[in-house]
């Protein structure tokens, strides 16, 4: 196939980028959009989990007598009678194909390892009856003293070698960090603490399991990744994937907690099999704190060495955090520290302690969010130490390439433009560099800034595009929409791929019967699914081009297919763009009602490699033509490092009498490649910043040190920002073209919005008060204490 569809240029767009209203907006407002717990199913019964009061010990007795007598109770399942899965999930020793964040499956024996662990599942005809029966179950325990965290005196810290359950190296060394640090004329060392955070999506996790025979199953599941849910269930149940259908049309948020497979899902599926009825289980709000992971409690120590002129010479990062009794999970905080600035020497190591908690899991920008808090706070301190403007200091250490990854060039980086535009919008030049000088009434006022970044995680997926001769189209990919706008933006992509107005395109997602897409996690859905749709469209274009060049009535009759190009649904001769016609025009003459294209699309480095190969040596990346090397082998691209970048600017007011911190102004400017929809993208970045302000100022789950049980597992006491906490925010994008990452140059934006936020707030607090806050959340008690401390 000589046709080269992979030139390193980006196609023109029309619908893409526009601030189009959400296609699912009306359904949501009318209550017509169905979430996983809302599908009507004939004969449905309801399950409720009874969870463990204690964090460690053994069940000695489960008295179900009173519960069983409740009207409507169908079954009470415990470890003694719940059907076993075909395969019990593996521990660390075995590679986990089933993508559970937590390898331990509760309700298999009498042992208890964490508070809130399921001990029984009650099935009844109504939710209320199941709830009441669960309350009547009396579980007796032999209680042991639990370990509550890494700072528990009984906890043992160990070196896990690998973190994120084996996925990521727990050690990283570049250059000679210790020597470089030791000899650096300017040094900075600080320890940062991050509280336990919970994702708290509005929609609790829910599973509706419908067995359609002994080995056919449909599950309405609130998951960010239907393919993963399908694979995990196939593995655990020992039945083929194609017998399992997962449906997730709408999600009420997830932020990472619905991106893994969790015990409640398999327990519901097994219980549905036991009672032989369709079964629905919805986690309660308190159960959401002990069923779907959390951001772990952690502390990071960061040492930075610099020259007198302010050039970074070394960074040494160490992290301690809590993990579960089985898994070695830690967010990889050090990655962002390693890559964000030009620094020749770097090292990172992790220590974990096992405690009686469930396994923690990725939460919005896992690693980058807390890692950037440490890095960007230290950078601010260093700027003060060196008597430099924090923004100038960052520019001085601007990474013109990726020092953390073989000094690869960036595929695109608009950080300087983000800094400049953000500073202008915010009025950074008006900042008084001397802390504690600005007052507004009684309040101390300060300004701070921080850098944002998020990597492009290489990914791939498939899509199907079906164009009808009447000028309508259906575009399909098994993606999910967290509420962020996937439905809408992929409609726009489909419209441009086929040259149709968006109203004539229906996008379908959230069903494993559709072509496989990656999950909505790691900011990879937008980049991958849009690329898949473009690839599927190309497949369709080729078919229509073949039709046109063979059709006497077509202006392209007898043209060489490789001479034809398609843009916005119109085929034309590359050399004579006047000459051409639309896809729909050619199709409608053909007598066919519709035509279909399907293909796999890639995002990130995989896309670049494919592009390089497809270029067949002709173009490759401009810096690096493809072709054969001296040994006659196909050259591989060394490739680009792929990241988004942005800058946050924040103003705070601190009340010196109460220690209350309120964010009063916010500016965020980001370079994220092609924005798919200005409205939904802006909302995402508002949301990211608000999420970050929450973790900066108020979010903390308190685990009782004696009981290893959460005390504020509800939305009254676990504070997330309310409207009154959030000022008017300005979010902008700088134009950025990136032809290396995917077909449209789209970078994901789900996570970058939170990265650096806590540091921007802390830096503003420092500017306001002269006090450095290194423990999140920065609650009034901590601020007050800092204000009273002279250091």
């Amino acid at each position, binding site marked *: 196939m000589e046709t080269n569809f992979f030139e390193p240029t980006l196609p023109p767009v029309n619908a893409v980028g526009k601030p189009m209203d959400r296609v699912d907006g009306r359904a949501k407002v009318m209550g017509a959009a169905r979430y996983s717990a809302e599908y009507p199913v004939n004969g449905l019964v309801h399950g409720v989990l009874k969870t463990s009061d204690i964090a460690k010990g053994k069940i000695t007795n489960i008295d179900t007598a009173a519960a069983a007598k409740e009207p409507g109770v169908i079954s009470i399942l415990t470890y003694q009678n719940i059907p076993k899965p075909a395969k019990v999930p593996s521990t660390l020793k075995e590679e986990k194909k089933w993508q559970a964040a937590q390898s331990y499956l509760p309700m298999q024996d009498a042992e208890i390892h964490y508070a809130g662990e399921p001990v029984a599942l009650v099935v009844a005809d109504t939710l209320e009856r199941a709830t009441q029966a669960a309350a009547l179950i009396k579980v007796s325990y032999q209680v042991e003293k639990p370990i509550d965290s890494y700072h528990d005196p009984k906890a043992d810290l160990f070196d896990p070698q690998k973190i994120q359950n084996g996925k990521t190296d727990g050690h990283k060394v570049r250059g000679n960090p210790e020597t470089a640090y030791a000899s650096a004329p300017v040094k900075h060392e600080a320890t940062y603490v991050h509280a336990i955070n919970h994702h708290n999506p509005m929609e609790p996790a829910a599973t509706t399991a419908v067995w359609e025979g002994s080995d056919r199953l449909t599950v309405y599941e609130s998951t960010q990744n239907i393919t993963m849910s399908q694979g995990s269930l196939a593995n655990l149940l020992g039945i083929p994937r194609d017998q399992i259908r997962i449906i997730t049309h709408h999600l009420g948020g997830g932020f990472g907690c619905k991106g893994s497979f969790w015990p409640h899902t398999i327990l519901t599926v097994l219980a549905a099999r036991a009672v032989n009825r369709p079964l629905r289980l919805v986690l309660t709000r308190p159960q959401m704190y002990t069923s779907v992971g959390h951001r772990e409690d952690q502390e990071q120590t960061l040492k930075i060495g610099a020259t007198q002129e302010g050039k970074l010479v070394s960074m040494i990062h160490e992290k301690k955090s809590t993990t579960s009794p089985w898994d070695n999970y830690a967010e990889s905080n050090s990655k962002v520290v390693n890559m964000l600035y030009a620094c020749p020497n770097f090292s990172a190591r992790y220590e974990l302690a096992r405690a009686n908690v469930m396994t923690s899991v990725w939460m919005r920008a896992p690693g980058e969010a807390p890692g950037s808090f440490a890095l960007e706070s230290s950078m601010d301190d260093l700027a003060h130490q060196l008597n430099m403007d924090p923004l100038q200091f960052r520019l001085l250490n601007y990474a013109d390439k990726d020092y953390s990854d073989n000094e690869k060039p960036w595929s695109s980086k608009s950080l300087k433009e983000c800094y400049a535009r953000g500073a202008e919008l915010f009025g950074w030049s008006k900042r008084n560099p001397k802390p504690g000088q600005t007052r507004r009434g009684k309040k101390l006022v300060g300004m701070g800034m921080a850098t944002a970044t998020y990597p492009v995680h290489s990914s791939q997926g498939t899509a199907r595009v079906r164009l009808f001769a009447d000028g309508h189209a259906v575009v399909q990919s098994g993606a999910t929409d967290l509420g962020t706008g996937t439905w809408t933006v992929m409609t726009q992509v489909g419209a441009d791929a086929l040259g149709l107005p968006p109203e004539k395109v229906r996008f379908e997602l959230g069903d494993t019967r559709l072509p496989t897409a990656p999950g909505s996690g790691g900011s990879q859905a937008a980049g991958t699914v849009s690329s898949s749709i473009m690839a599927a469209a190309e497949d369709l274009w080729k078919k229509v081009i073949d039709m046109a060049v063979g059709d006497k009535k077509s202006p392209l009759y007898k043209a060489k297919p490789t001479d034809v190009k398609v843009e916005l649904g119109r085929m034309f001769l590359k050399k004579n763009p006047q000459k051409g016609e639309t896809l729909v025009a050619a199709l409608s003459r053909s007598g066919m009602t519709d035509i279909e294209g399907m293909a796999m699309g890639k995002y990130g480095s995989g896309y670049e490699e494919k592009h390089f190969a497809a270029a067949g040596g002709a173009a490759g990346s401009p810096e690096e033509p493809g072709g054969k090397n001296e040994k006659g082998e196909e050259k591989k691209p060394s490739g680009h490092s792929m990241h988004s970048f942005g800058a946050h600017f924040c103003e705070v007011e601190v009340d010196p009498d*109460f*220690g209350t911190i309120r964010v009063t102004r916010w500016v965020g400017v980001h370079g994220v490649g092609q924005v798919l929809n200005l409205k939904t993208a802006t909302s995402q970045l508002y949301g990211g910043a608000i999420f970050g302000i929450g973790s900066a*100022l*108020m979010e903390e789950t308190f685990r*009782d040190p004696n009981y290893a*049980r959460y005390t504020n597992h509800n939305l009254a006491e676990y*504070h997330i920002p*309310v409207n009154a906490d959030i000022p008017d925010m300005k979010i902008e994008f700088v134009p950025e073209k990136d032809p290396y990452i995917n077909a449209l140059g789209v970078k994901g934006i789900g996570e970058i919005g939170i990265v650096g936020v806590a540091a921007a707030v802390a830096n503003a607090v420092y500017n306001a008060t002269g006090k450095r806050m290194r423990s999140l959340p920065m609650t009034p*008690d901590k601020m007050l204490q800092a204000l*009273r401390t002279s250091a």
Partner: protein
Amino acid sequence: MNNFSYLQATKAKEATGAKRDDKSSAFIAGGTTLIDLMKLNVENHDQLIDVNMLPFKGIEQSNDGLRIGALERMSDVGEHKLIVEQYPAISQSLLLAASAQLRNMASIGGNILQRTRCPYFRDTAFPCNKREPGTGCPAKEGDNRNLAILGTSDACIATSYPGDLSVALIALDAVLTLENAKGKQRRVPISEFYRLPGKTPHIENTLEADELIVAVTVPKAEHARKSLYMKVRDRASYAYALTSAAVGLDVQGGTIRSARVALGGVGAQPWRSKEAEQMLVGKPANESTFRAAAAAAVRGAQPYEHNAFKIEMVQNTLVRALTEVAAKG
């Protein structure tokens, strides 16, 4: 939540006559405290007596002062012109509380009887002396950040009343009108209504099982007209007080003639500080007087691991409240 029977009472006697004891039956007004605790299995009543149809309504000013029916809603009372103008601390204490939705449901009587937010009390997996006498108080060595520093006991350190309204009411000498099953009414100053935990933290007030709160009256006074409620919290809205202060001052010619001070978020009950008031009366209305009053208010405070910050924070809250109210002239 247990199954329960439901009785909608249309006459006070019907309600009080049906009430058996506090454990098995309960009155329900807005339900925002009660239903919450029943869902958590903290309270398990098998009979609910709906009092919303009772005629305990009205917001009036008489010679005695202000009278608020116990079934008036927080939002209606908080926004009422008479209260905004003549009893600002009461209005502010209501409007700074909870959320708009809750304020629309919640009644004045229910607010006065709301229960502690101590997390151990609200989770039956934990022991708790208030919920189950004799089981212990894990808060002392645990999550006590938002618990009390004044009036606590070895048995319980909770802010038994975590809310706002009663702080303003106790500052302004409010009196509750109660009515029992015999139809007999009695009047109890709110300062004598709540009980300190002592050895019996489960007994929170002097209300008898068959008694209803009918109304709240607040005497007319210059310090009520010049009153203010200030609340400090973890987020800008929709949070319980870390510390709060309800103050009223009558200042003439720069000298304080009468003063009212109550503190929230710090006491085992809404905390009237006569000590602070004594430091204010007869003194010039200036910062050093206010500081001295604040110091007097926290004398004897006993903090735990996470709530020592309240000692300073509540003093600053009080000083700020007094400063602002004095500035009103």
